[in-house]
């Protein structure tokens, strides 16, 4: 194939319509969301909650020094338990499902960062770090399933959940790409496992977003499953996972 393939162009009407839709949605999508911090400071200013918040701050200061050691710990270290306990406390204090989901996404980020750290500084800790990452992804996907299956979950919440999953997946895929390029050969197997875990964030099974109804129905269109079963890995005969062959199956 020494020549270029034709370069198709989208219809002008389609481009205009999509642009209009994006511009219509942009103000609400791009408006700054209330952060966990602003919610917490807001709560602190409420008189009824002030004593509890003061107690929490004091407890936080007491544990701060131990926390510093825990923050630098890797899965398998003695101080790592403290780090996990702090994360569980954060989760318990989450005000709503979306915040909880966001915290779980952050925890998967932390586990992946620890895996990267283990690969570069302490390869013997890498298998434990991979296990910890897999467990974090599992907790995240379980919370996502629970949120989606919860009766009365609003479309806004669903969209917010999709945003969290998309962002987490994109970020973690980028980190794994970098690691794959730099990690030693001996670590590649562990990375492949981590990659498979990250792929589980991908099997979100969200309904396709369409701009406008099509004039003619698509005869081959099949109904979309509400969500891929959790036990199903992203592999199939037709679409192998990344790295399932030495090069091209991704």
């Amino acid at each position, binding site marked *: *194939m*020494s*020549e*270029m*393939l*034709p*370069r*198709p*162009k*989208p*219809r002008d009407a*389609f*481009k205009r319509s*999509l*642009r209009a839709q*994006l*511009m219509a*949605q*942009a*103000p609400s*999508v*791009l*408006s*700054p969301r209330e952060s966990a911090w602003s919610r917490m400071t807001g709560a602190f200013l409420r008189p009824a909650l002030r004593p509890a918040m003061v107690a929490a701050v004091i407890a936080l200061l007491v544990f701060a020094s131990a926390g510093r050691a825990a923050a630098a710990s890797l899965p398998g270290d003695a101080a790592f338990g403290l780090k996990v306990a702090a994360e569980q406390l954060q989760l318990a204090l989450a005000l709503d499902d979306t915040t909880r989901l966001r915290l779980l996404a952050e925890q998967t980020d932390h586990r992946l960062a620890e895996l990267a750290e283990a690969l570069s500084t302490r390869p013997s800790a890498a298998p434990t770090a991979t296990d910890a990452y897999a467990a974090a992804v599992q907790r995240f996907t379980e919370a996502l399933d629970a949120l989606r299956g919860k009766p009365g979950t609003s479309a806004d919440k669903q*969209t917010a959940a*999709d*945003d969290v999953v*998309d*962002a987490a997946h*994109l*970020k973690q*895929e*980028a980190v794994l*790409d970098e690691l794959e*390029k730099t990690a030693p050969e001996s670590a590649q197997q562990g990375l492949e496992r981590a990659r498979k875990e990250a792929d589980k964030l*991908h099997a*979100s*099974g*969200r309904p*396709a*977003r*369409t*701009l406008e109804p*099509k004039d003619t129905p*698509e005869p*081959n269109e*099949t109904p*979309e*499953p509400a969500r*891929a079963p959790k036990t199903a890995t*992203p592999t*199939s*005969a*037709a*679409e*192998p996972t990344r790295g399932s062959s030495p*090069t*091209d*199956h*991704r």
Partner: protein
Amino acid sequence: MGELPNSRTEDVVSSAEREEDAALARRAGSGEAEAFGVLYDRYVDAVYRYVFYRVRNEAEAEDVTSDVFMRALRAIPKYEPRQAFLAWLYRIARNAVIDRSRRQGARQQVSFEDALAHPNADQVVNPDAGLLAGSDASVVRVAMQQLTPLQQEILVLRYVEGYDTKTISKLVGKRDGTIRGIEFRALSALRALIPSREAL
């Protein structure tokens, strides 16, 4: 399998464009919708082309392109400019295509005969193009559905967008040699799938 005569050896975009994109993305991320509109105008064609050969028809290509930009709109506050904006969009597009094919279950058997029976006369390629002689975009697309997602992606980046191997390796996060191997196998598979003009 050398470089194409007109292959693009520069990075995905020039550094000036990249800085401009980063500034637009920052403005969009802080709530300026029109900045996102400018990025959309700049890259909608590229995203559509990237998707076009990886789905079954134009309607699907439009759906996936819409999905890509909706995802990009929601994710832009978290965009980090160390990655070129177009490369970031390609990554979102790759995920959108994979998500769609997963939702559709096992890859459906598209009718190769149908595609041959309704060629799109506007898109017939140069008859000198060895492998593609007598083929049109719809035939190539149907054949490409039989390839793995990564093979499809590499062929599109190389033969539609015209990127060289080094640039593609950066875009998909694989080594140069790996890209060449995948391209070779993808072309071999396409040779078996696309009939010659005589066969038609």
